[in-house]
């Protein structure tokens, strides 16, 4: 088997020969890939941070946000072009790195990239700023005075793995607010960010020093301290333990934005379960499960299905099983490492054995699937809890969707997306209650893994959170008037 090789990262000002490299091995779909990731010394790391800060001050801050949007739009157009060498590289190598089915990666990437074209970016900016001019100039405020939004000179982004290209989200957000960015890629997907940085520099070579993409072994306290001590802002994606550890190394005076792991689920009202609509509803639910094998924060773990429709909840579960088995043929689940497979097997065994033990009382439970996917059905209300991921989903029958609301309270910190199939009035009633419980995103089934451009990630402002507002109060303006040379 010939081994493919690729170099990760983007290190302006550093020669490849002066940097130590470590190799990460990947194997999937019968091919091997070795990725060289950079290991910087403290001196190199400091030099890199200084370089990005300087370039961000002199160049990035001199651009208008419209110019930046144009540059990103051009780069995204390149990635949307199937003939472009960068896109071809992504289509070839990302399936090897992540293990996901190549077609699933290709479709997912295209859908995702489309949210970064000019119109979507403009919407994204208006969503957060109202008037994006705030990023270019002191703009008049309705209350009086003027304000301008300043991005950090340099921000460090610590990215998570397995949904390919996830890092583009924060990389592009940083650019839009004219912030220099040093991003740390995850060992699970070390490539996309470096490619994007190089592509942006191809589009506008003066961006060369405004970005860097680095790597260090997760948990390397010394490296984290060096990078974080030179940053004005640190963004990190990861699990609670990883985030807690990252936070320890962020200086108290540096702003820290953590994006933790999330728990998402679906609600299916009886109105979505008539004979005509049910099939579509189930297909959409299955699609949300299959996309990225439930590794996304927005991926559903449980579907609560209302009784009283023409299709009963247990029929819904059987349909879902059928759809998942069809998807397995179209987009096979990635191969699991032994530990992942063992964890999934243990989860399935626990379900299987508790059925045999008859400890479920009146609950009628069923388990279907061959290990590449699993559907567990429960006739009694079950608490919201994560499944074993990798296409394992629980279907729970409920008398009313409102019965689910009391189950949410304990998980406030983890709630994110809810895929809802319900009539308008019910949608808004449920939205109010779920919002109170801590849910931050409600979408249609089938769209759970594709957030809209300009969405509020974890209920926050993706761009607004990255800037510092500077106000010129009306008093300053009034006082200045008295000092003008032309004052009478």
């Amino acid at each position, binding site marked *: 088997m010939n081994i493919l090789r690729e170099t990760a990262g983007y290190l302006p000002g550093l020669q490849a020969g002066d940097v130590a490299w470590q190799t990460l091995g990947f194997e999937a779909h019968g091919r091997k890939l070795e990725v060289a990731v950079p290991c910087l010394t403290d001196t190199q790391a400091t030099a890199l941070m200084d370089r990005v800060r300087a370039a961000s001050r002199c160049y990035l801050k001199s651009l208008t946000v419209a110019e930046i949007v144009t540059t990103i739009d051009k780069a995204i157009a390149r990635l949307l072009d199937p003939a472009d060498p960068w896109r071809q590289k992504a289509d070839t190598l990302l399936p090897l790195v992540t293990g996901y089915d190549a077609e699933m990666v290709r479709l997912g990437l295209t859908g995702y990239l489309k949210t970064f074209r000019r119109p979507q970016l403009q919407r994204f900016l208006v969503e957060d700023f109202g008037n994006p001019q705030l990023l270019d100039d002191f703009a008049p405020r309705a209350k009086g005075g003027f304000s301008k939004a300043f991005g950090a000179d340099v921000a460090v982004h610590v990215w998570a793995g397995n949904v390919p290209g996830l890092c583009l989200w924060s990389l592009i957000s940083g650019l839009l607010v004219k912030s220099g960015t040093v991003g740390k890629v995850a060992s699970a997907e070390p490539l996309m960010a470096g490619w994007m940085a190089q592509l942006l520099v191809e589009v506008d070579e003066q961006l060369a020093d405004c970005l860097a993409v680095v790597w260090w072994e997760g948990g390397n306290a010394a490296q984290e301290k060096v990078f974080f001590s030179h940053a004005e802002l640190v963004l990190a994606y990861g699990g609670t333990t990883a985030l807690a550890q990252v936070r320890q190394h962020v200086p108290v005076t540096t702003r820290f934005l953590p994006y933790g792991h999330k728990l998402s689920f679906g609600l299916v009202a009886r109105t979505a379960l008539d004979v005509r609509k049910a099939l579509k509803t189930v297909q959409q639910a299955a699609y949300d499960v299959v996309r990225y094998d439930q*590794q996304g924060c927005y991926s559903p773990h449980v579907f609560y299905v209302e009784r009283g429709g023409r299709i009963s909840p247990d029929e819904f579960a059987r349909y879902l099983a059928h759809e998942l088995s069809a998807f397995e043929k179209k987009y096979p689940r990635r191969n699991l490492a032994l530990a992942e497979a063992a964890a999934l097997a*243990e989860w399935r065994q626990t379900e299987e054995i508790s059925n045999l033990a008859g400890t479920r009382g009146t609950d009628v439970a069923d388990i279907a699937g061959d290990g590449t996917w699993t559907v567990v059905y429960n006739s009694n209300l079950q608490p919201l809890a994560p499944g*074993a991921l990798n296409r394992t989903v629980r279907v729970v029958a409920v008398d009313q969707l409102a019965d689910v609301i009391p189950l949410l309270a304990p998980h406030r910190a983890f709630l994110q997306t809810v895929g809802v199939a319900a009539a308008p009035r019910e949608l808004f009633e449920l939205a109010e209650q779920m919002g109170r419980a801590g849910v931050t995103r409600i979408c249609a089934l089938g769209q759970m893994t594709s957030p809209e451009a300009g969405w509020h990630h974890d209920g926050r402002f993706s761009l607004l959170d990255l800037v510092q507002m500077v106000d010129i109060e009306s008093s300053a303006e009034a006082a200045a008037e008295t000092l003008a040379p032309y004052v009478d």
Partner: protein
Amino acid sequence: MALSPLIAELHAFLAADHPSDDAFNQQALALFAHQYQHNLPFQRFCQQRGKTLRTVKSWRNIPAVPISAFKALSLSCIPAADAERTFMTSGTTQKEVKGKHHHPTLAVYNDSMRRNFRHRFMQGSDRKIRMGILFPDETMLPNSSLAHYLALALREFGTPDSHYLLTEAGLDHTRLHVELARAQQTGEPYALLGASYSFVHLLDELQGLGKSFTLPPGSRVLDTGGFKGQSRELSIDEFYAQLAGTLGLGREHCINMYGMTELSTQFYDAGNATLPSVKSGPHWIRTLVVEPLSGVELPRGEQGILAHCDLANFNSVTTLLTEDVGIAVNGGFLLLGRAQGSAAKGCSLAVEEFLQAATA
């Protein structure tokens, strides 16, 4: 088959000299038929897997029951209350449900243990050895299979002066020093047997005092069970290096036993001079390395989950799916530890993190 002829047949099989593959298979299928008929949770488990007496033609096809099932199901061919002894898994918390293994009689367990122990730890010799046991006795832990195993070792293979070094007050330091010094002076071989973590406590004690010994030839050590958070964690290599250094015996005389409450037979290595050591069992237990989700046997040399078919497990289930990772090699298997949950790759909440948050 009624119970007593079945047990008689088993004793004969244990005593047999190199029985054929076919004999193993026949014995396994006879036990499968017995368990399928009398152990109803197991029957339901088989039916759920689509396995019946008709379809299972080889011991390899007997459905392997996950060890976690011993917690939720009563896997026994007799009413649990009629068991001579019930061994329970050691839970780390009070709340934790314990796995139960019911033995209608301990005769088979004891026969299995004695034959195997004599061969592997006593090196086939009938000459008894002075033993110190680093584990509580059976009166303190009546439901511990390890306590019973060690009590049996002491009673059957220990000299009359053999003794327990662990009391309700903890490690008996005074007696330990006396025994080690005595062995060194008299040249009488001495054997220390117990839980791996107790040996770490012993090392901490002796190293703290700056003491070391040179045990006479014929002395040996048997440890089992790993550290389980009951002592400091150290690598296996460090563990045996320190054990050999502090007690003054070769690492080839430090034998590790791999057993579990849910089995009636143990595995041993032939010392730990080189790592990883190869574990193997007697002719009445066979091990498969399987892919955890499909249960399909993996080719030799590939990592998988261990499944054991133990013919001494006549009352529960012969074939168990463990949570241990291993590789099949010539002469046995390498034990690579528990299948640890891999670090979450995406940003979807994983069960482990969820549970941590729930208990925080």
